[in-house]
């Protein structure tokens, strides 16, 4: 037994050989980064130019669109407009609340449905119907029920996010690596350990993308509901502007909403990269899916 110390060396050496440095292809991709950034700027400039000439050459009736310059001027005149900021805050609050409620509800329901298969078998027709129903079309009804204020928008946003998260959660909970469950069970893990240390982390991993997607849909849902009637909000500002053909303001609001969506998506993307840094190759680039 005392010879065991002598033979520790050789096997140890071999481990280092297993380490793989980044391939030359990965390096090549890295060195492309700056030209790609320049390419992006060029495409954005081109897009603005196209927009400019569509307006200038009257491709679309000038009464119905705003030019890049008019839109920019609107931003210049309104960047410190308290009413615009208030509308932004209201819409953002509706979207965030709807997103949080919808995601949490979708996650919990999905887990529950995966755990109790019978429950899913019994309730699935109703869920399938609700999922298939055009939920945005419920907006006017929701406003009748919950009023003009923010609640109706939160409900619509949450109902959209709910299904975006619930459906993949249920699927992911059924596809947890059985080896991990076996290991957890043989280690003496209780039901609680199985849930918090195996099922929940693997499900969250699979549905993080859906939760991120849900944030953009929550903003869409909130804004859309506001079109049908609201006290404040970007959707209301937008529809009011188009009603009086104030196109620079309409375009300005559209830009605000888009920038908001990109920001939310980006923040969650950063969070995702932080939480998912254990994943080897990234399928987690900043893909916008709306």
């Amino acid at each position, binding site marked *: 037994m005392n010879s*065991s110390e002598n*033979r520790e060396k050789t*096997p140890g050496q071999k*481990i280092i050989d297993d380490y793989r440095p980044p391939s030359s292809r990965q390096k090549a991709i890295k060195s492309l980064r700056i030209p790609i950034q320049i390419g992006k700027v060029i495409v954005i400039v081109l897009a603005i130019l196209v927009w400019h000439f569509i307006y200038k050459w009257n491709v679309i009736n000038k009464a119905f669109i705003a030019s890049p310059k008019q839109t920019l001027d609107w931003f210049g005149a309104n960047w410190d407009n308290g009413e615009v900021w208030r509308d932004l805050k209201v819409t953002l609050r509706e979207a965030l609340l709807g997103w949080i409620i919808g995601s949490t509800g979708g996650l919990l329901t999905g887990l529950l449905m995966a755990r109790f298969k019978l429950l899913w078998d019994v309730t699935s027709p109703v869920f399938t119907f609700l999922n298939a129903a055009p939920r945005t079309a419920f907006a006017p009804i929701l406003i009748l029920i919950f009023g003009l204020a923010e609640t109706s928008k939160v409900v619509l946003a949450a109902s959209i996010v709910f299904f975006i998260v619930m459906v993949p959660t249920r699927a992911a909970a059924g596809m947890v690596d059985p*080896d991990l469950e076996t*290991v957890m069970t*043989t280690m003496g893990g*209780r039901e609680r350990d199985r849930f918090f240390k195996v099922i929940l982390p693997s499900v969250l991993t699979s549905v993080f993308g859906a939760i991120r997607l849900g944030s953009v849909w929550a903003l869409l849902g909130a804004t859309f509901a506001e079109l049908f009637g609201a006290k404040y909000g970007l959707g209301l500002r937008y529809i009011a502007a188009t009603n009086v053909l104030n196109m620079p303001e309409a375009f300005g609001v559209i830009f605000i909403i888009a920038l908001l969506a990109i920001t939310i998506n980006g923040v969650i993307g950063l969070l995702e990269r932080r939480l998912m840094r*254990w994943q080897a190759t990234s399928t987690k680039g900043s893909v916008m899916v709306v």
Partner: protein
Amino acid sequence: MAEVAVALSDVTLIFSDANGDPVLAVDDVSLEVPQGQFLAIVGPSGCGKTTILNMLSGLINSTLGTVVKNGEVVTGPSMDVGYMLARSALFPWRSARRNVEMPMEIRGVGKAERRRRADELLDMVKLGDFKTKFPSQLSQGMRQRVAIARTLAIEPKLWLLDEPFSALDAQTRITVQNEFLRLWENTGSTVILVTHDLSEAVLLADRVIVMTARPGKIKLDQVIDIPRPRRVDDLLDNEHFMQLEARIWKELRDELV
């Protein structure tokens, strides 16, 4: 002979297949394993090797007969068993260190103590420089070492190994096998290894059992009297090893056709 670690008496297991038809997986197997023995079970696929491990780990119950571990009838999973699979089954979202901490977490070991012990175990499997790496950043061999460290953290009296070296390439396999032997040989714990690789069984074990094709029965029970400590790569051209392997191979061959 030493105290009995594991005893199967007249164990039969019948399960139903996809069509609901009964399948006789294990047919009246009796077996005693003394504490500290390294037993290898070889046999063709479907001979019920893994089923025996699952019964020992308490994942499934035998249809007939009793499974006794450390003097007590097995009724469910217990914390003194270390189970290793062909795939490392590491938690991909946890670093090597936090994977090794897992069994201690389940037992409620304090955070500082957990970390200290995990680091110690990772040093023992020579992954001291890879503690904060995630499984996706490690090679197959390294992952299986982390799995060994994690199983060591259980401080098992009984190791159940379900082909844990079979997914590794030839060189890595020898390294990891040596590593396992080095760590196990002084522990006094019992090992039951299931494998379809006969040389692996003879190289590592004190005793090899050959099972028949389904329904699984014990066909041959052979003591491997190669002295310990062993080093797998030193044994490969050992004459005694080759004789033993050839003798068992003759028995196994009949089961493969």
